[in-house]
């Protein structure tokens, strides 16, 4: 009982300003991850992530993940944590198919991941250091969601997470228009990542369209 926090041997969740310090640290870790972007129009949703350069003999890790035939996701933060969350999404998508014999809607997926992440914020464990962007098509059309380590999730038309994400997001806000085509969106996301990093980056990109309803990686 030597700690001055008064919590004994237990982790102190709240900082002096009433912030959840562990969650703040997780968000901090996400901010150091690779710059990752999501853009949505009524016709399609696009997700793109910066691939950090590795040594020549080492293959870079995959950053765009298929969740189900109609959903894809990407993330920023610790890759091990991202992978764990991706698998949670995949299992939930198949669980939904088992129960309802229908593909899962993207909101339910985002909500599930939010709930999953939220559990890590209420026990004395390490919150997952990863934010995830989910893109997909369902009964309500094209969907794009961001889910954060706190369990917060929100839908929208443009997201940026990871390193210099504020710069990237500003760039997307400036260049975004609802009637842009896929080519323009790819260009915009590349430009946003380039602006954030100050150099021409290698990126991995995934796309889902309202017409085709199938998530695919775009070959570079």
């Amino acid at each position, binding site marked *: 009982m030597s700690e001055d926090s008064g919590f004994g041997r237990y982790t102190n969740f709240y900082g002096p300003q009433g912030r959840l310090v562990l969650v703040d640290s997780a968000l901090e870790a996400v901010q150091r991850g690779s710059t990752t972007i999501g853009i949505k129009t009524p016709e399609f949703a696009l997700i793109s992530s910066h691939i950090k350069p590795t040594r020549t003999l080492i293959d870079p890790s995959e950053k765009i993940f298929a969740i*189900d035939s109609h959903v894809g996701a990407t993330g920023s933060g610790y890759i091990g944590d991202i992978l764990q969350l991706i698998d949670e999404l995949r299992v939930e998508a*198949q*669980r939904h198919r*088992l129960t309802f*014999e229908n593909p899962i809607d993207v909101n339910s997926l985002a909500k599930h991941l939010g709930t999953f992440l939220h559990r890590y914020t209420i026990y004395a464990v390490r919150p997952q250091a990863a934010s995830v962007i989910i893109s997909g098509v369902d009964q309500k059309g094209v969907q794009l969601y961001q889910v954060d380590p706190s369990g917060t999730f929100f839908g929208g038309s443009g997201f940026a997470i990871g390193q210099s994400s504020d710069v990237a997001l500003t760039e997307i806000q400036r260049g975004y228009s609802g009637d842009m085509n896929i080519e323009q969106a790819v260009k915009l996301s590349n430009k946003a990542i380039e602006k954030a990093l100050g150099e021409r980056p290698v990126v991995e990109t995934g796309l889902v369209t309202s017409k085709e309803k199938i998530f695919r990686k775009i070959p570079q």
Partner: protein
Amino acid sequence: MTTIVGIKTKEGVVLGSDKRASKGFFIGSKITQKIAKIDDTLAIAIAGQLSDAEYLIKVAKAERKLMELRRGFPLDVKESTKLIANLAYSGLRNYQPYYVELLVAGVDQDGGHVFVADMSGAITNEDFAASGSGSPIAYGVLESVYNKDLTNEQAKEIANKAVAAAMERDPGSGNGIDLLAIPNLLVKEVPS
């Protein structure tokens, strides 16, 4: 009840089934789908308790999709069959067997395959197979005409004949025939 047949060919695999679902001595349905397509490379023909079979197929489909997403390439036909057999075996060991005999047929890198998976969890790899109450009659046809050089088109005719013969004499089978042919994935490149 039921007659289902599966035939391996040099071009892929062919499945055939009747359409009758019996409720004792009553015909419960005349338009039952007994061939479940899992995807473009795999299909399963059902004999036995329909609910059990549908459940096994549903779970296998989900697990197969998950595995494909996780490792980046799909399960081959044998792996898919084993997935179902594992479920069937655990059912048997828990004194709650899934009352089924399934023909798992599909194509992968090695061409066409027909596997029989039953409620005991056993798997056999066959050139051709039949299952259900009409199977002895269907086997009579299959045994007399099968050879390894069949095309899918020829196999469809044989499958049709085998199920038709069973429907003539087996009261558990009838009301029409479903056929499904799955062509091989690879057209092997001619070495230049």
